[in-house]
C-alpha cells in the first residue's frame, strides 16, 4: 500500500461518518444584524455626547457675549487696577 492508497482508504471510510448537526441560523442573523445596530448605537452615543458638550458651551458663549457687550465695561476698565 502506498501513501495515496492509505489516504483513499481512510477517506472512503470517513465518508460514512455522521457529522455533528449544527444550526447556526440565529448566530448568523445576529452577526449580520450587528453592524447596523452597532452603527446606530455609536451614532446615539455621538449625539448624546454632542448634546452634553453643547449645553455648557452655549452657557459660556452667552456669558462671554454678555461680558463683551456690557455697556459699562469701557467705563470701569480703567479703574480695574485701583479696585484690585
Amino acid at each position, binding site marked *: 500500500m502506498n*501513501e495515496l*492508497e*492509505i489516504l483513499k482508504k481512510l477517506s472512503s471510510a*470517513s465518508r460514512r*461518518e455522521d457529522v455533528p448537526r*449544527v*444550526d*447556526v441560523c440565529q448566530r*448568523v442573523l445576529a452577526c449580520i444584524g450587528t453592524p447596523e445596530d452597532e452603527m446606530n448605537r455609536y451614532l446615539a452615543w455621538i449625539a448624546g455626547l454632542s448634546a452634553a458638550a453643547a449645553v455648557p458651551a452655549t452657557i459660556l458663549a452667552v456669558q462671554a457675549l454678555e461680558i463683551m457687550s456690557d455697556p459699562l465695561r469701557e467705563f470701569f476698565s480703567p479703574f480695574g487696577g485701583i479696585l484690585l
Partner: protein
Amino acid sequence: MDPDCAALTALIADVPERVHSMRPVVPDEDIEDIGAGLNGDEHAYARLVRRHQPRVATRMWKFSRDAADHEDLVQEVFVQAFLGLKNYRGDAPFEHWLARIATRVGYRFWKINARDRTIQSVPIEDLEHLLSSDSRDVDAQQAGATLHQLMDMLPPRDRLVLVLRYVEERSVEETAGLTGWTQTMVKVQSWRARKKLRKLLEDAGMELER
C-alpha cells in the same frame, strides 16, 4: 392570474437583473432568497442558511473536529457569504460559491492554528489497525479522526491540496477553482504534499509500496 403567482412575480420583479440570469444553474428557491437577501431581507437569508448548512457543516468537519470550532467555522462561512452576496454572479450554483468561501475560511483557520500547533506523532497503531481491517468493518469515526490527525501534521497548503484532491476526490480543475491556484500549481502542490506525507509515514516506521 393566481394571487400566489402574482405575488411571486412581483417579488421576482424586485430582484436585480443579475439574479434573473442565474436561472439555468441556480434552483428557483435559491434565486428568490438570494434576491431578497440582496434587498436586505434577513429571513430570506436565514432560509438559505438552513438549506445549505448541512453540506457546509460536512465540509467544515474536515477543517476542524472540535465541536465549538466547527460551529464557528460554519457560522463564519455564512457571514462571509452574506457580506459577499452582492458579488455572487450566479454563473455557478450557490452551493459551489459557498464551497469556495468555505475552503477559504477553513484554510485560514488552519493557517492561524498552525502557528500554535503542538508537534504530534503519526497515529501509527490506529493507522495499522484501520489498514488491516476490511473496508466495511472500518469504524468511520475512527477513520475520520485518524485521517484528521495525520493531515494535521502537514503544513496547511499541503493539507488543503490532499483533502481536496484525495479526500473529497475533486479534479485538478475543481481544486484550482476552489483554491484560486492555477492547475499547474495544484499538480505541483499535490505532488509535493504526497511526498511529504510519504516521508512522514516512512519516518514513523511504515513500509510503503512505490
